[in-house]
């Protein structure tokens, strides 16, 4: 049974007096533990698809099942609870809270999950050690490099042991050397933790790390291929 199963997902946005179709009936199935990269040019609809996939953006039509749960029928509180339990997010611009230290940023999802302070601190430390930031835990985001900030974001995404990580251009703001380091880290976590990764990108570097490449064009999935074959 796939961990992600989308069927005929459609999404449109109003533009003036008309509506523009961004997603035109996407069907996709992702197995647990897969590292899937969705590639495509700007405006192809890949970020919108990721937002719909996470439940942040409602679909107009179609069925979306993640870990056996139907997202299209959930209300906002149910979606929040679902994201807390099953999903982790990595963004291009890291989206860390600037007033919190690296450790506190990683702890944040566990606060909303109601994990006791001692336990969540241990979990967060362990995760920061795993992403190679054991010596930067008390630093504010402004005191960290771009790559380090993205590592904090990765640790935050993984701290509550989600089954699926959704990453939107995770290397978009990084230089090529740091991009490779981050992708290697993601791949390592994918292998070690068995977490499913869906990465949206237009960077070619990701090709070497994904189990499967899916290309999007004009709101449709046009090609699929396995990079390692």
């Amino acid at each position, binding site marked *: 049974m796939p961990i992600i199963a989308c069927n005929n997902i459609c999404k449109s946005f109003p533009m003036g007096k008309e509506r523009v179709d961004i997603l035109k009936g996407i069907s996709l199935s992702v197995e647990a533990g897969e590292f899937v990269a969705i590639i495509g040019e700007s405006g192809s609809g890949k970020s919108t698809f990721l937002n719909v996939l996470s439940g942040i953006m409602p679909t107009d039509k179609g069925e979306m099942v993640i870990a056996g749960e139907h997202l299209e029928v959930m209300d906002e509180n149910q979606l929040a609870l679902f994201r807390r339990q099953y999903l982790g997010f990595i963004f291009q611009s890291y989206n860390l809270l600037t007033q919190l230290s690296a450790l506190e940023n990683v702890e944040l*999802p566990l606060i909303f999950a109601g994990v006791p302070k001692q336990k969540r601190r241990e979990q967060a430390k362990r995760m920061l050690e795993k992403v190679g930031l054991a010596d930067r835990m008390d630093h504010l985001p402004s005191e960290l490099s771009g790559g380090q900030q993205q590592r904090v974001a990765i640790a935050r995404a993984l701290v509550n042991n989600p089954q699926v990580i959704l990453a939107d251009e995770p290397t978009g703001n990084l230089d090529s050397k740091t991009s490779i380091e981050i992708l290697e880290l993601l791949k390592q976590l994918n292998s070690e933790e068995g977490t499913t990764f869906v990465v949206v990108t237009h960077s070619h570097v990701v090709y070497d790390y994904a189990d499967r490449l899916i290309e999007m064009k004009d709101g449709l999935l046009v090609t699929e291929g396995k990079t390692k074959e």
Partner: protein
Amino acid sequence: MKLLDLIEIIWRNMWKRRTRTIFTMVGVIVGCLSIFMIISITNGFEQYLTTSMQEMMDTSVIQVYPNYQSSEGGEARTELTDEDVTKLEELGLFLKVTPKQYAHTLVQMQQLETYISILAVDDYSSIDENKIQIGRLPNTGTREIIIGYEMAKELLGYSWDQKITDQSELENLIGQKIKVGGGSSMIDDKGNKISMKKFSTVIVGVFSSQAKEHAYGAVSSSKFVKTLLRSEIDYYATINPEEKPDMSRLKKYDSIDAKVTDVSLLADAESQLKEMGYQISSAKEFEQQTKLMLLGVNTVLGALAGISLFVSALGITNTMDMAIYERNKEIGIIKVIGGSVNDVIKIFVGEACAISLLGGSIAIVLGFIFTFILNVVGESITADLLGQSITQIAIPTVTLVTGILIFCFVVGFLAGIIPAKKAAKTDIITAIK
């Protein structure tokens, strides 16, 4: 999200924007402090009035007066006689029914002249001897007189707002001969001066300042009071020979003190007496009137202070509303990592309540400090001004403190709920872009 984590988040957010938080809080402090002081002062005033009244009159005593107005319960009792005394005794509600008759007359001591009400007393055992400052009670049936403390001050040449520094001065009054009566005179057709008769009497005692019921008056035997009343009747008979002298005045009482057997019967006894057509007064009635009057004062002043609290509530709403725009990204991140709509509402409402509650708490602490200062300063000022010190000008109560905290919580909640709901509706995608 656990409560302690919520408190930590709220505290961190408030600390981050501490300047704005403090300014917003100042509004709450001013409003709450005003309410705290107004209610504390009226509490103090109420207690002062009630205590003074209780010192002046026995709380179990109803004072019955003639009723010159139309009565709701039927016939108005325009005079009090022995018949009324018997009627009250027959009600079975009263332990003791004491009629009171006064002679309102002029008193002269050397060059000093003043008016005085002399209470007629047959049985001196009804007077508490502990309330005598100096001297003794008059002997039964004599013209001896015991005067009140304020009257003594007046005879010693003090004004009402002055204090007797040396109490031994009062001893000078004991044994002093004074003239009682007179005060009215006229020239008749033949050119003769007709005056009200004067009587010599001697001061044998002075009541203490605690005996407030006698403060400006005096007590003497019933026989002497009747003599004074008779001289008044004779005077008016002389100047109006065509009118028949009204001898009934000798049998009329100015008031009747009715002491209830049990204080719980007071309200019942009061209503029965009103129905019978008497006019009454009691410490309880005075207390009720005082409370009613102070409630009015509290309502007016409280409403004025309430306006400043309302303005501060708007300040909180404005602060929280601005915070939504500033913290748009933060709200988006919280929601995307699993914070629910309720979590966002809790954070925003919690912050508004915290600003309000903290402001209220600071106001309460300041209120206690101001109350302490006011009471210390007020004690010496009232001692100088009134001749007796009021130790508690302002009295804060537990109810007041609890009330302010509950009120602050409600104000904070109402001020925070609209911005909180707005924050919870934040679009995640727009926020985290």
